[in-house]
């Protein structure tokens, strides 16, 4: 493996592959993340839910530094996120991310989308990169679409390409920001199935989603956020059957009502 992260004791890696300690973030005057403390172990699968605007996206975008935090510590794979560009690059190679709107590159074919980062970041020979690309396309079950452009695919297929694109970089951690909320109902399942398969390989996953079925089958832990804070976290059955806070209960009743 081409893991270049400094090798510290394996125990700390296993215990906290992602550590967020007292993280605060502001957008200008607006206090968007308040005192976030979160430890994620290797292989853990975490689902984050909460009302719109509660800071879920901001939280996971801090993990690969698409957003900058102003206070506290974020340590990913034993590397602390600071403004040091080397560290940021290193972490972005280790952490894959899927967006709500896929963000595939429309001017490149599906296969080119997949090989872009391996070629330019990992410096893999083209033929090898294409091999890797095809391997992951097979894994998300659309190898026959390799030469098409993203615009020619359905939403569900596009999101699966986006997942494959992240996997091509061989990440240790995958972040998902509402991967199914821009999709039609019949396509949600195909994406969720892909994610469940991924979970079965033992990938560390943090997933913002309101798909409660997915949370119940896959997650080790569910985290509920409101107003920029973690209100409560629990293992899924306990979380759904026996919420600790009034706020959580209200939220769950709204989610399950429709």
């Amino acid at each position, binding site marked *: 493996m081409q893991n270049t992260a400094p090798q510290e004791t394996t125990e700390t890696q296993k215990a906290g592959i992602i550590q967020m300690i007292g993280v605060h973030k502001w957008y200008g005057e607006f206090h968007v993340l308040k005192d976030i403390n979160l430890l994620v172990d290797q292989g853990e699968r975490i689902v984050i839910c909460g009302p719109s605007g509660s800071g879920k996206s901001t939280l996971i975008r801090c993990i690969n530094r698409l957003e900058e935090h102003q206070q506290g510590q974020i340590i990913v794979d034993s590397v602390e996120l600071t403004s040091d560009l080397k560290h940021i690059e290193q972490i*972005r190679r280790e952490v894959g991310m899927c967006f709500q*709107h896929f*963000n595939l*590159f429309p001017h490149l074919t599906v296969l080119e989308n997949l090989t872009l*980062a391996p070629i330019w970041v990992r410096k893999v020979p083209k033929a090898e990169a294409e091999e890797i690309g095809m391997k992951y396309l097979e894994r998300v079950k659309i190898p026959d679409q390799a030469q098409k452009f993203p*615009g020619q695919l359905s939403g569900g297929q596009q999101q699966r390409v986006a997942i494959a694109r992240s996997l091509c970089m061989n990440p240790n951690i995958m972040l998902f920001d509402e991967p199914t909320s821009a999709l039609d109902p019949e396509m949600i399942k195909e994406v969720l199935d892909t994610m469940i398969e991924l979970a079965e390989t033992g990938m560390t996953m943090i997933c913002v989603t309101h798909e409660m079925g997915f949370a119940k089958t896959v997650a080790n832990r569910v985290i509920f956020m409101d107003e920029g804070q973690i209100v409560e976290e629990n293992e899924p059955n306990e979380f759904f059957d026996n919420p600790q806070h009034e706020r959580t209960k209200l939220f769950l009743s709204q989610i399950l009502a429709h």
Partner: protein
Amino acid sequence: MSDQADKAGTTVAKPPPWNDPFVRSIFFQVVAIGLLGYFFYSIFDNTLSNMAKSGVSTGFAFLTREAGFGILMSLIEYDETHTYGRTFFVGLLNTAIVAFCGIILATILGFVIGIARLSNNWLVSKLATVYIEIIRNIPLLLQIIFWSVAVLQALPDPQNSIKYGESFFLNNRGLFLPKPIFEDGFGLVTIAFLVAIAAIVYIKRWARQRQEQSGDQFPVFLTSVALITGLPLLVFLAMGMPISWEYSALERFSFVGGSNIIPEFMALLWALTMYTAAFIAEIVRSGIQAVSHGQTEAARALGLRNGPTLRLVIIPQAMRVIIPPLTSQYLNLTKNSSLATAIGYPDLVSVFMGTTLNQTGQAVEIVAMTMAVYLTFSLGISAIMNWYNKRVALVER
């Protein structure tokens, strides 16, 4: 039952001809052709009789007659004894040179300002905005006349030139530069330059192949820059600098020798560049902004650095948006160069549609020839644009 089937199967009842859309449409078109034909016929008739009255013979015979007037600037050999036909080419080339230089300079300046407008440096972005908002809301003709009259004519006379060393002189007759004189051996420098270009093409291919096989990347851009400057320079030094300069020198009241850029050219080029750059800057800005922020974020999340993100993700998408309006700015610049007339720069309109027309009175022929030049250029560019758009569209979907 059989009756109905019969009706449906064979013919639909025909409407009366004046209600039949097909007949109507034929009728309108015939009328339109008739009106147009009559229009052109009467114009033609009037023109012929008007020209006969004033004693001007029609036709293109005048093009072979001696022109008898001088032209301020010419890229080809020309003096009073050449023909009217040649004045056409002198003007055409003068238009071409100013448009060509203008397009290159305006593109560079426009991209710089457009990117500055998007800079996250507040001051730089505000300065770019101020430039754009001032320049594009003032008529180009005013700007051309301003630079020509208020700035260049206000320069000192040749005796009091603004100097840079003893080789560059700026005065109200224009800019005087040393003229290079190539000696034996300079040919080798040119060859070295060509060799460098060939090498770059080869290295680019080689680097791509190597990348595909081993994954290693090669700094193609830096190597290219080094090659294209270094190789000719080395040969140049090795040959003992086979070049000498003919300097301009003040003799009595004017400069002789060297090369001269006339002030009309400078004013026109300067104004065209500034004006068009303001529009190009806006095109560049909106092109870059048209690429959604999600694209940058996706590239970042994959670990791409700023350079490759720009080169591989942002620019290819932005260029699709930028290029069509950019070419129409190039067309505008070329058409706008005809404002040269106002300051006496001898472009096509000024020389041919101005002086030649005045001397010969061949209005119809001359206006038609001049317009044909611009039309050919416009239609040619649009054809290329259509081809480009189709190609880009093909690559995308």
